[in-house]
Protein backbone atom coordinates (compact mmCIF):
# COMPACT_ATOMS: atom_id res chain seq x y z
CA UNK A 1 0.00 0.00 0.00
CA UNK A 2 1.22 3.49 -0.86
CA UNK A 3 0.34 6.04 1.77
CA UNK A 4 0.71 9.82 1.62
CA UNK A 5 0.45 11.89 4.80
CA UNK A 6 0.08 15.66 4.44
CA UNK A 7 1.39 17.68 7.34
CA UNK A 8 1.24 21.32 8.32
CA UNK A 9 3.90 23.30 10.15
CA UNK A 10 2.06 25.40 12.73
CA UNK A 11 2.64 27.40 15.91
CA UNK A 12 2.41 25.28 19.04
CA UNK A 13 -1.11 25.29 20.53
CA UNK A 14 0.06 27.38 23.50
CA UNK A 15 1.87 29.98 21.36
CA UNK A 16 1.01 33.62 21.86
CA UNK A 17 -0.11 35.01 18.51
CA UNK A 18 0.98 38.53 17.50
CA UNK A 19 1.61 40.18 14.14
CA UNK A 20 4.30 42.36 12.57
CA UNK A 21 4.87 44.33 9.35
CA UNK A 22 1.78 46.44 9.80
CA UNK A 23 -0.31 43.38 10.73
CA UNK A 24 0.44 41.51 7.52
CA UNK A 25 2.74 38.81 8.95
CA UNK A 26 2.74 36.50 11.92
CA UNK A 27 5.43 37.46 14.42
CA UNK A 28 7.46 34.24 14.52
CA UNK A 29 9.68 35.53 17.29
CA UNK A 30 9.66 33.06 20.17
CA UNK A 31 6.99 30.91 18.51
CA UNK A 32 7.68 27.20 18.58
CA UNK A 33 6.51 25.25 15.54
CA UNK A 34 5.05 21.76 15.56
CA UNK A 35 3.47 19.25 13.19
CA UNK A 36 -0.26 20.07 13.26
CA UNK A 37 -1.81 17.97 16.08
CA UNK A 38 -4.42 16.39 13.79
CA UNK A 39 -1.77 15.72 11.14
CA UNK A 40 0.20 14.00 13.89
CA UNK A 41 -2.73 11.59 14.39
CA UNK A 42 -2.84 10.97 10.63
CA UNK A 43 0.88 10.29 10.61
CA UNK A 44 0.68 7.93 13.59
CA UNK A 45 -2.10 5.87 11.98
CA UNK A 46 -0.25 5.89 8.65
CA UNK A 47 2.87 4.49 10.31
CA UNK A 48 0.83 1.78 12.05
CA UNK A 49 -0.85 0.74 8.80
CA UNK A 50 2.47 0.63 7.01
CA UNK A 51 3.95 -1.51 9.77
CA UNK A 52 0.98 -3.88 9.61
CA UNK A 53 0.70 -4.38 5.89
CA UNK A 54 3.95 -3.16 4.39
CA UNK A 55 4.22 -0.58 1.64
CA UNK A 56 5.54 2.94 1.73
CA UNK A 57 4.69 6.15 3.53
CA UNK A 58 5.56 9.55 2.10
CA UNK A 59 5.05 12.81 3.97
CA UNK A 60 4.19 15.92 2.05
CA UNK A 61 4.30 19.52 3.15
CA UNK A 62 3.50 22.62 1.16
CA UNK A 63 5.62 25.31 2.76
CA UNK A 64 8.95 26.95 3.17
CA UNK A 65 12.30 25.63 4.41
CA UNK A 66 11.65 26.50 8.05
CA UNK A 67 9.36 23.43 8.12
CA UNK A 68 12.25 21.04 7.49
CA UNK A 69 12.76 20.18 11.20
CA UNK A 70 9.10 19.11 11.42
CA UNK A 71 9.44 17.10 8.19
CA UNK A 72 12.52 15.39 9.64
CA UNK A 73 10.51 14.61 12.75
CA UNK A 74 7.88 12.92 10.59
CA UNK A 75 10.63 10.89 8.96
CA UNK A 76 11.93 9.96 12.42
CA UNK A 77 8.44 8.82 13.43
CA UNK A 78 8.39 6.39 10.51
CA UNK A 79 7.81 7.97 7.09
CA UNK A 80 10.11 6.61 4.38
CA UNK A 81 10.60 9.77 2.39
CA UNK A 82 9.35 13.33 2.18
CA UNK A 83 8.37 15.94 -0.37
CA UNK A 84 8.23 19.65 0.32
CA UNK A 85 6.60 21.95 -2.19
CA UNK A 86 8.48 25.17 -1.77
CA UNK A 87 5.75 27.82 -1.45
CA UNK A 88 3.98 29.90 1.18
CA UNK A 89 0.61 28.12 1.52
CA UNK A 90 -1.84 30.95 2.11
CA UNK A 91 -4.83 29.66 0.16
CA UNK A 92 -6.57 26.29 0.55
CA UNK A 93 -7.21 25.90 -3.19
CA UNK A 94 -3.55 26.57 -3.93
CA UNK A 95 -2.35 24.11 -1.28
CA UNK A 96 -4.79 21.43 -2.43
CA UNK A 97 -3.73 21.89 -6.06
CA UNK A 98 -0.10 21.26 -5.08
CA UNK A 99 -1.01 18.13 -3.12
CA UNK A 100 -3.26 16.86 -5.93
CA UNK A 101 -0.46 17.42 -8.45
CA UNK A 102 1.94 15.25 -6.45
CA UNK A 103 -0.75 12.64 -5.85
CA UNK A 104 -1.64 12.35 -9.55
CA UNK A 105 1.92 11.36 -10.34
CA UNK A 106 2.21 8.76 -7.59
CA UNK A 107 -1.12 6.91 -7.31
CA UNK A 108 -1.37 6.68 -3.54
CA UNK A 109 -3.89 4.22 -2.13
CA UNK A 110 -4.49 6.34 0.92
CA UNK A 111 -3.99 10.05 1.52
CA UNK A 112 -4.16 10.94 5.19
CA UNK A 113 -4.52 14.49 6.51
CA UNK A 114 -5.59 16.14 9.73
CA UNK A 115 -9.24 17.13 10.20
CA UNK A 116 -8.02 20.73 10.12
CA UNK A 117 -4.86 22.79 10.25
CA UNK A 118 -4.59 24.75 13.50
CA UNK A 119 -3.42 27.92 11.78
CA UNK A 120 -6.29 28.32 9.31
CA UNK A 121 -8.74 25.83 10.86
CA UNK A 122 -10.35 25.50 7.45
CA UNK A 123 -11.06 21.79 7.25
CA UNK A 124 -11.28 21.97 3.48
CA UNK A 125 -7.99 20.79 1.99
CA UNK A 126 -9.00 17.08 2.14
CA UNK A 127 -12.26 17.70 0.31
CA UNK A 128 -10.54 19.85 -2.31
CA UNK A 129 -7.88 17.21 -2.93
CA UNK A 130 -10.47 14.42 -3.02
CA UNK A 131 -12.46 16.22 -5.69
CA UNK A 132 -9.37 17.19 -7.68
CA UNK A 133 -8.44 13.51 -7.76
CA UNK A 134 -12.07 12.45 -8.21
CA UNK A 135 -11.92 10.07 -5.25
CA UNK A 136 -13.99 10.10 -2.04
CA UNK A 137 -12.95 12.14 0.98
CA UNK A 138 -14.18 11.77 4.57
CA UNK A 139 -13.58 13.81 7.71
CA UNK A 140 -13.31 13.77 10.69
CA UNK A 141 -12.25 10.14 10.88
CA UNK A 142 -11.79 8.61 14.34
CA UNK A 143 -11.08 5.04 13.37
CA UNK A 144 -9.56 3.47 10.28
CA UNK A 145 -8.96 -0.18 9.39
CA UNK A 146 -7.77 -1.41 6.02
CA UNK A 147 -8.54 -4.86 4.71
CA UNK A 148 -7.12 -5.43 1.24
CA UNK A 149 -8.53 -2.58 -0.81
CA UNK A 150 -11.44 -1.86 1.54
CA UNK A 151 -11.36 0.73 4.27
CA UNK A 152 -13.63 0.67 7.31
CA UNK A 153 -14.01 4.14 8.74
CA UNK A 154 -15.71 5.53 11.83
CA UNK A 155 -16.32 9.22 11.53
CA UNK A 156 -17.93 11.86 13.62
CA UNK A 157 -21.28 13.19 12.51
CA UNK A 158 -23.35 15.79 14.29
CA UNK A 159 -24.14 14.35 17.74
CA UNK A 160 -22.80 10.87 17.09
CA UNK A 161 -20.76 8.67 14.86
CA UNK A 162 -21.13 6.63 11.72
CA UNK A 163 -19.27 3.59 10.45
CA UNK A 164 -18.85 3.00 6.75
CA UNK A 165 -16.93 0.81 4.35
CA UNK A 166 -15.55 2.10 1.09
CA UNK A 167 -12.91 1.11 -1.47
CA UNK A 168 -9.50 2.71 -1.76
CA UNK A 169 -8.20 5.14 -2.93
CA UNK A 170 -9.39 7.70 -0.41
CA UNK A 171 -8.56 11.01 1.21
CA UNK A 172 -9.21 11.18 4.95
CA UNK A 173 -9.09 13.97 7.52
CA UNK A 174 -8.10 12.37 10.83
CA UNK A 175 -8.64 13.12 14.50
CA UNK A 176 -8.24 11.27 17.77
CA UNK A 177 -8.63 8.53 18.82
CA UNK A 178 -7.52 7.14 15.45
CA UNK A 179 -4.06 6.43 16.92
CA UNK A 180 -1.79 7.57 19.72
CA UNK A 181 0.73 10.25 18.84
CA UNK A 182 4.16 8.74 18.25
CA UNK A 183 7.37 10.12 19.70
CA UNK A 184 10.47 9.51 17.60
CA UNK A 185 13.05 7.19 19.15
CA UNK A 186 16.82 7.54 18.90
CA UNK A 187 17.11 5.12 16.01
CA UNK A 188 14.37 6.92 14.13
CA UNK A 189 16.08 10.26 14.63
CA UNK A 190 19.36 8.85 13.33
CA UNK A 191 17.87 7.24 10.22
CA UNK A 192 15.72 10.30 9.47
CA UNK A 193 18.85 12.29 8.72
CA UNK A 194 19.57 10.27 5.62
CA UNK A 195 16.03 9.66 4.38
CA UNK A 196 15.24 11.52 1.13
CA UNK A 197 13.57 14.95 1.36
CA UNK A 198 12.74 16.16 -2.10
CA UNK A 199 12.09 19.88 -2.58
CA UNK A 200 9.90 20.74 -5.57
CA UNK A 201 8.74 24.07 -6.94
CA UNK A 202 4.97 24.65 -6.98
CA UNK A 203 2.84 24.24 -10.10
CA UNK A 204 1.10 27.45 -11.10
CA UNK A 205 -2.50 27.89 -9.98
CA UNK A 206 -4.97 30.71 -10.66
CA UNK A 207 -5.11 33.04 -7.68
CA UNK A 208 -8.37 32.44 -5.82
CA UNK A 209 -7.80 34.58 -2.73
CA UNK A 210 -5.33 37.22 -1.58
CA UNK A 211 -4.41 37.52 2.07
CA UNK A 212 -5.06 40.87 3.73
CA UNK A 213 -4.47 42.12 7.25
CA UNK A 214 -4.53 40.20 10.50
CA UNK A 215 -6.14 41.36 13.72
CA UNK A 216 -6.35 40.24 17.33
CA UNK A 217 -9.66 39.90 19.17
CA UNK A 218 -10.74 42.79 21.38
CA UNK A 219 -9.44 42.25 24.91
CA UNK A 220 -11.87 40.56 27.26
CA UNK A 221 -13.42 42.71 29.99
CA UNK A 222 -12.86 41.80 33.63
CA UNK A 223 -14.59 38.74 35.03
CA UNK A 224 -17.42 39.60 37.40
CA UNK A 225 -17.02 37.53 40.57
CA UNK A 226 -20.05 36.35 42.48
CA UNK A 227 -19.66 35.17 46.09
CA UNK A 228 -20.33 31.44 46.45
CA UNK A 229 -23.12 31.97 48.99
CA UNK A 230 -24.96 34.22 46.55
CA UNK A 231 -24.62 31.79 43.65
CA UNK A 232 -28.30 32.04 42.79
CA UNK A 233 -27.92 35.71 41.80
CA UNK A 234 -25.82 34.53 38.86
CA UNK A 235 -28.92 33.24 37.13
CA UNK A 236 -30.58 36.68 37.50
CA UNK A 237 -27.51 38.40 36.08
CA UNK A 238 -27.39 36.03 33.14
CA UNK A 239 -31.00 36.89 32.42
CA UNK A 240 -31.06 40.64 32.99
CA UNK A 241 -27.47 41.79 32.47
CA UNK A 242 -25.84 39.36 30.03
CA UNK A 243 -29.23 38.61 28.42
CA UNK A 244 -28.29 35.05 27.55
CA UNK A 245 -31.16 33.26 29.32
Amino acid sequence: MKILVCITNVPDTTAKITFTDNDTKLNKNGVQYIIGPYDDYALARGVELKEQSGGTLTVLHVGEADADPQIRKALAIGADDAIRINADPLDSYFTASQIAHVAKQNNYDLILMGRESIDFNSGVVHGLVGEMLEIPSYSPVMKLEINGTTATIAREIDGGKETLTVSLPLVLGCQEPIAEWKIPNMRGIMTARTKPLQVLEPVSVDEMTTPGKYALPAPKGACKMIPADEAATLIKLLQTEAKVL
Partner: protein
Amino acid sequence: MSVLIFIELDNGVIKKTSLEAILYGSKVAEKTGGEATVLAFGSADSSELEKAGHYGATKVLHASGEKLNHENSLAYADALVQAVNQEQSKVIIISKSGLGDAVAARAAAKLKAGVVSGVTELPEINGSFKVTRSIYTGKAFATTEIKSDIKILVVKKNAVEIDENALSTVQAVVEAFSPNLRDSDFKATVTNVEKAASELSLTEADIIVSGGRGMKSPDQWQPLLDLASALGAATGCSKPVSDLDWRPHHEHIGQTGIKVAPNLYIACGISGAIQHLAGVNGSKCIVVINKDPEAPFFKAADYGIVGDVFEILPKLTEAARNLK
Protein backbone atom coordinates in the same frame (compact mmCIF):
# COMPACT_ATOMS: atom_id res chain seq x y z
CA MET B 1 -25.11 38.83 -7.12
CA SER B 2 -27.20 35.73 -6.97
CA VAL B 3 -26.53 33.85 -3.73
CA LEU B 4 -27.03 30.14 -3.06
CA ILE B 5 -27.28 28.92 0.53
CA PHE B 6 -26.72 25.26 1.39
CA ILE B 7 -28.69 24.31 4.49
CA GLU B 8 -28.81 21.31 6.81
CA LEU B 9 -31.95 19.72 8.17
CA ASP B 10 -32.33 17.83 11.40
CA ASN B 11 -35.34 15.51 11.24
CA GLY B 12 -36.96 17.75 8.68
CA VAL B 13 -36.32 20.94 10.65
CA ILE B 14 -33.90 23.63 9.46
CA LYS B 15 -30.94 23.77 11.85
CA LYS B 16 -30.42 27.01 13.72
CA THR B 17 -26.96 27.45 12.19
CA SER B 18 -28.57 27.07 8.77
CA LEU B 19 -31.14 29.76 9.60
CA GLU B 20 -28.19 32.03 10.33
CA ALA B 21 -26.67 31.05 7.00
CA ILE B 22 -29.90 31.98 5.22
CA LEU B 23 -29.96 35.36 6.95
CA TYR B 24 -26.30 35.86 6.11
CA GLY B 25 -26.79 34.92 2.47
CA SER B 26 -29.85 37.13 2.16
CA LYS B 27 -27.90 40.09 3.48
CA VAL B 28 -25.16 39.47 0.90
CA ALA B 29 -27.80 39.23 -1.83
CA GLU B 30 -29.44 42.43 -0.62
CA LYS B 31 -26.10 44.29 -0.62
CA THR B 32 -25.39 43.27 -4.18
CA GLY B 33 -28.90 43.48 -5.61
CA GLY B 34 -29.34 39.74 -6.15
CA GLU B 35 -31.64 37.02 -4.93
CA ALA B 36 -31.02 34.49 -2.19
CA THR B 37 -31.89 30.89 -3.01
CA VAL B 38 -31.71 28.03 -0.54
CA LEU B 39 -30.72 24.45 -1.36
CA ALA B 40 -32.01 21.73 0.98
CA PHE B 41 -31.52 17.96 0.90
CA GLY B 42 -33.65 15.23 2.42
CA SER B 43 -37.22 14.97 3.69
CA ALA B 44 -38.94 18.06 4.96
CA ASP B 45 -42.40 19.57 4.78
CA SER B 46 -42.82 22.52 2.46
CA SER B 47 -44.27 24.47 5.38
CA GLU B 48 -40.91 24.17 7.15
CA LEU B 49 -38.86 25.11 4.09
CA GLU B 50 -41.08 28.11 3.33
CA LYS B 51 -39.75 29.60 6.57
CA ALA B 52 -36.51 30.37 4.73
CA GLY B 53 -38.47 33.38 3.48
CA HIS B 54 -38.64 34.83 6.99
CA TYR B 55 -34.86 35.05 6.87
CA GLY B 56 -34.78 36.71 3.45
CA ALA B 57 -34.62 33.89 0.90
CA THR B 58 -36.96 34.07 -2.08
CA LYS B 59 -36.76 30.46 -3.19
CA VAL B 60 -35.92 27.03 -1.84
CA LEU B 61 -34.65 24.26 -4.11
CA HIS B 62 -35.66 21.05 -2.40
CA ALA B 63 -33.88 17.88 -3.41
CA SER B 64 -35.57 14.96 -1.71
CA GLY B 65 -35.62 11.23 -2.27
CA GLU B 66 -34.35 8.19 -0.43
CA LYS B 67 -30.78 8.53 -1.69
CA LEU B 68 -30.41 12.06 -0.39
CA ASN B 69 -31.80 11.48 3.09
CA HIS B 70 -28.49 10.28 4.39
CA GLU B 71 -25.76 12.93 4.76
CA ASN B 72 -23.46 12.51 1.75
CA SER B 73 -21.02 15.32 1.02
CA LEU B 74 -20.01 13.87 -2.36
CA ALA B 75 -23.56 13.80 -3.72
CA TYR B 76 -24.53 17.08 -2.08
CA ALA B 77 -21.55 18.85 -3.64
CA ASP B 78 -22.39 17.43 -7.05
CA ALA B 79 -25.98 18.59 -6.72
CA LEU B 80 -24.93 21.96 -5.39
CA VAL B 81 -22.84 22.61 -8.48
CA GLN B 82 -25.87 21.79 -10.65
CA ALA B 83 -27.94 24.27 -8.63
CA VAL B 84 -25.22 26.92 -9.01
CA ASN B 85 -25.27 26.45 -12.76
CA GLN B 86 -29.07 26.56 -12.91
CA GLU B 87 -29.31 29.70 -10.76
CA GLN B 88 -26.14 31.36 -12.06
CA SER B 89 -25.11 31.85 -8.43
CA LYS B 90 -21.97 33.85 -7.73
CA VAL B 91 -21.76 33.50 -3.97
CA ILE B 92 -22.32 30.27 -2.05
CA ILE B 93 -22.98 30.37 1.69
CA ILE B 94 -22.60 27.30 3.90
CA SER B 95 -22.61 27.17 7.68
CA LYS B 96 -19.54 25.64 9.26
CA SER B 97 -19.76 21.97 10.21
CA GLY B 98 -17.99 18.79 9.15
CA LEU B 99 -20.56 18.36 6.40
CA GLY B 100 -20.51 22.05 5.44
CA ASP B 101 -16.73 22.12 5.06
CA ALA B 102 -16.75 18.96 2.95
CA VAL B 103 -19.50 20.18 0.62
CA ALA B 104 -17.79 23.58 0.30
CA ALA B 105 -14.44 22.00 -0.50
CA ARG B 106 -15.69 19.54 -3.10
CA ALA B 107 -17.86 22.18 -4.75
CA ALA B 108 -14.94 24.64 -4.81
CA ALA B 109 -12.76 22.16 -6.67
CA LYS B 110 -15.51 21.49 -9.22
CA LEU B 111 -16.32 25.17 -9.74
CA LYS B 112 -12.72 26.42 -9.55
CA ALA B 113 -13.93 28.75 -6.85
CA GLY B 114 -12.07 30.37 -3.98
CA VAL B 115 -13.24 29.02 -0.64
CA VAL B 116 -12.79 30.63 2.77
CA SER B 117 -13.84 28.71 5.85
CA GLY B 118 -14.49 30.18 9.30
CA VAL B 119 -15.99 33.50 8.21
CA THR B 120 -17.10 35.59 11.20
CA GLU B 121 -18.70 38.70 9.69
CA LEU B 122 -20.58 39.92 6.64
CA PRO B 123 -18.29 40.53 3.66
CA GLU B 124 -17.05 43.94 2.67
CA ILE B 125 -18.13 44.44 -0.93
CA ASN B 126 -17.06 47.51 -2.88
CA GLY B 127 -15.31 46.63 -6.08
CA SER B 128 -13.48 43.88 -4.21
CA PHE B 129 -15.01 41.12 -2.06
CA LYS B 130 -13.34 40.82 1.33
CA VAL B 131 -14.17 38.49 4.19
CA THR B 132 -12.96 38.22 7.76
CA ARG B 133 -12.37 34.81 9.21
CA SER B 134 -11.21 33.32 12.48
CA ILE B 135 -7.70 31.79 12.46
CA TYR B 136 -5.31 30.22 14.97
CA THR B 137 -8.26 28.55 16.68
CA GLY B 138 -9.92 31.80 17.67
CA LYS B 139 -6.74 33.60 18.70
CA ALA B 140 -6.82 35.98 15.70
CA PHE B 141 -8.70 37.15 12.63
CA ALA B 142 -7.60 37.49 9.03
CA THR B 143 -9.14 39.45 6.18
CA THR B 144 -8.97 37.76 2.81
CA GLU B 145 -10.00 39.03 -0.59
CA ILE B 146 -11.74 36.44 -2.74
CA LYS B 147 -10.86 36.98 -6.39
CA SER B 148 -12.50 34.08 -8.19
CA ASP B 149 -15.71 34.61 -10.13
CA ILE B 150 -17.63 32.24 -7.85
CA LYS B 151 -17.00 32.63 -4.13
CA ILE B 152 -17.66 30.08 -1.41
CA LEU B 153 -17.97 31.21 2.20
CA VAL B 154 -18.19 28.78 5.11
CA VAL B 155 -19.69 30.84 7.90
CA LYS B 156 -19.22 30.35 11.63
CA LYS B 157 -22.03 30.37 14.15
CA ASN B 158 -22.97 33.91 15.31
CA ALA B 159 -21.56 35.63 12.19
CA VAL B 160 -24.96 37.32 12.00
CA GLU B 161 -27.43 37.66 14.81
CA ILE B 162 -31.00 36.54 14.34
CA ASP B 163 -33.45 39.05 15.75
CA GLU B 164 -36.70 37.11 16.08
CA ASN B 165 -38.68 40.36 16.21
CA ALA B 166 -37.24 41.67 12.95
CA LEU B 167 -38.05 38.63 10.80
CA SER B 168 -40.31 39.08 7.81
CA THR B 169 -43.51 37.11 7.31
CA VAL B 170 -42.78 36.40 3.66
CA GLN B 171 -42.68 32.75 2.68
CA ALA B 172 -40.15 31.36 0.27
CA VAL B 173 -41.31 29.52 -2.85
CA VAL B 174 -40.40 25.85 -2.58
CA GLU B 175 -39.38 24.17 -5.85
CA ALA B 176 -38.56 20.51 -6.31
CA PHE B 177 -35.00 20.06 -7.48
CA SER B 178 -33.86 16.81 -9.10
CA PRO B 179 -30.13 16.76 -9.63
CA ASN B 180 -28.40 14.08 -11.67
CA LEU B 181 -26.83 11.76 -9.15
CA ARG B 182 -23.67 9.88 -10.00
CA ASP B 183 -23.19 6.29 -8.88
CA SER B 184 -19.64 7.12 -7.89
CA ASP B 185 -21.01 9.30 -5.08
CA PHE B 186 -22.81 6.36 -3.51
CA LYS B 187 -20.05 3.78 -3.31
CA ALA B 188 -19.65 3.82 0.45
CA THR B 189 -21.80 1.48 2.53
CA VAL B 190 -22.90 2.88 5.86
CA THR B 191 -22.89 -0.04 8.29
CA ASN B 192 -23.73 1.66 11.55
CA VAL B 193 -24.99 5.00 12.86
CA GLU B 194 -24.85 5.81 16.55
CA LYS B 195 -26.76 8.92 17.31
CA ALA B 196 -28.27 9.88 20.60
CA ALA B 197 -31.64 10.90 19.20
CA SER B 198 -32.87 13.03 22.06
CA GLU B 199 -29.59 14.77 22.70
CA LEU B 200 -29.13 18.43 21.90
CA SER B 201 -26.24 18.86 19.51
CA LEU B 202 -23.31 20.75 20.99
CA THR B 203 -22.58 22.76 17.87
CA GLU B 204 -26.20 23.92 17.67
CA ALA B 205 -26.81 24.52 21.37
CA ASP B 206 -27.41 28.02 22.73
CA ILE B 207 -26.39 26.96 26.23
CA ILE B 208 -23.76 24.42 27.23
CA VAL B 209 -22.97 23.17 30.72
CA SER B 210 -19.57 21.53 30.70
CA GLY B 211 -17.62 19.56 33.30
CA GLY B 212 -13.95 18.91 33.95
CA ARG B 213 -11.90 16.73 36.24
CA GLY B 214 -13.18 18.86 39.14
CA MET B 215 -16.46 16.90 38.86
CA LYS B 216 -14.48 14.10 40.52
CA SER B 217 -16.05 10.94 39.05
CA PRO B 218 -18.58 9.83 36.44
CA ASP B 219 -21.23 9.03 39.03
CA GLN B 220 -21.12 12.57 40.38
CA TRP B 221 -22.34 14.12 37.11
CA GLN B 222 -26.00 14.38 38.17
CA PRO B 223 -25.84 17.94 39.58
CA LEU B 224 -24.41 19.10 36.25
CA LEU B 225 -27.06 17.23 34.27
CA ASP B 226 -29.73 18.77 36.49
CA LEU B 227 -28.55 22.30 35.75
CA ALA B 228 -28.36 21.49 32.04
CA SER B 229 -31.89 20.18 32.04
CA ALA B 230 -33.19 23.19 33.99
CA LEU B 231 -31.59 25.50 31.41
CA GLY B 232 -32.41 23.38 28.36
CA ALA B 233 -28.68 23.11 27.77
CA ALA B 234 -26.44 20.59 26.04
CA THR B 235 -23.63 19.02 28.06
CA GLY B 236 -19.93 18.97 27.28
CA CYS B 237 -16.67 18.06 28.98
CA SER B 238 -12.92 18.54 29.00
CA LYS B 239 -10.55 16.13 27.28
CA PRO B 240 -9.35 14.21 30.36
CA VAL B 241 -12.98 13.55 31.25
CA SER B 242 -13.67 11.85 27.92
CA ASP B 243 -10.24 10.18 27.93
CA LEU B 244 -11.18 8.64 31.28
CA ASP B 245 -14.51 7.54 29.78
CA TRP B 246 -16.44 9.53 32.35
CA ARG B 247 -18.35 11.06 29.45
CA PRO B 248 -18.71 10.07 25.76
CA HIS B 249 -16.04 11.21 23.32
CA HIS B 250 -18.43 13.35 21.28
CA GLU B 251 -18.87 15.66 24.31
CA HIS B 252 -15.17 16.53 24.36
CA ILE B 253 -14.69 20.24 23.73
CA GLY B 254 -11.49 22.01 22.77
CA GLN B 255 -8.60 22.15 20.40
CA THR B 256 -8.72 18.44 19.66
CA GLY B 257 -12.45 18.04 20.23
CA ILE B 258 -15.51 19.99 19.21
CA LYS B 259 -15.45 23.76 18.88
CA VAL B 260 -18.55 25.39 20.21
CA ALA B 261 -19.97 28.90 20.14
CA PRO B 262 -23.03 29.01 22.39
CA ASN B 263 -24.53 32.14 23.88
CA LEU B 264 -23.71 30.78 27.32
CA TYR B 265 -20.96 28.36 28.33
CA ILE B 266 -20.88 27.24 31.96
CA ALA B 267 -17.60 25.53 32.92
CA CYS B 268 -17.73 23.42 36.09
CA GLY B 269 -14.44 22.25 37.56
CA ILE B 270 -12.46 22.90 34.39
CA SER B 271 -9.06 24.57 34.85
CA GLY B 272 -9.12 26.46 31.55
CA ALA B 273 -6.05 25.08 29.78
CA ILE B 274 -5.37 26.86 26.50
CA GLN B 275 -6.37 23.77 24.52
CA HIS B 276 -9.77 23.78 26.18
CA LEU B 277 -10.21 27.53 25.70
CA ALA B 278 -9.51 27.06 21.99
CA GLY B 279 -12.81 25.23 21.72
CA VAL B 280 -14.94 27.74 23.60
CA ASN B 281 -13.56 31.17 22.76
CA GLY B 282 -16.38 31.76 20.30
CA SER B 283 -18.91 31.75 23.17
CA LYS B 284 -20.80 34.95 23.87
CA CYS B 285 -20.80 34.63 27.64
CA ILE B 286 -18.63 32.35 29.76
CA VAL B 287 -19.33 31.39 33.39
CA VAL B 288 -16.63 29.62 35.38
CA ILE B 289 -17.15 27.71 38.61
CA ASN B 290 -13.89 26.56 40.18
CA LYS B 291 -12.68 26.14 43.75
CA ASP B 292 -9.28 27.55 42.83
CA PRO B 293 -9.37 31.36 42.49
CA GLU B 294 -6.16 31.15 40.44
CA ALA B 295 -7.68 28.83 37.80
CA PRO B 296 -6.72 30.29 34.40
CA PHE B 297 -10.29 29.94 33.12
CA PHE B 298 -11.35 33.01 35.16
CA LYS B 299 -9.21 35.17 32.84
CA ALA B 300 -11.41 34.14 29.92
CA ALA B 301 -14.69 34.36 31.85
CA ASP B 302 -17.44 36.95 32.06
CA TYR B 303 -18.80 35.67 35.37
CA GLY B 304 -17.02 33.60 37.97
CA ILE B 305 -17.80 31.82 41.21
CA VAL B 306 -15.00 30.54 43.43
CA GLY B 307 -16.32 27.51 45.25
CA ASP B 308 -17.15 23.83 45.28
CA VAL B 309 -19.17 22.74 42.23
CA PHE B 310 -21.18 20.29 44.33
CA GLU B 311 -22.42 23.11 46.56
CA ILE B 312 -22.96 25.65 43.80
CA LEU B 313 -24.60 23.59 41.05
CA PRO B 314 -27.74 22.72 43.07
CA LYS B 315 -28.22 26.41 43.95
CA LEU B 316 -27.99 27.40 40.29
CA THR B 317 -30.37 24.61 39.29
CA GLU B 318 -32.93 25.76 41.81
CA ALA B 319 -32.66 29.38 40.64
CA ALA B 320 -32.91 28.28 37.01
CA ARG B 321 -36.04 26.22 37.71
CA ASN B 322 -37.62 29.22 39.40
CA LEU B 323 -37.05 31.29 36.26
CA LYS B 324 -39.75 29.51 34.33
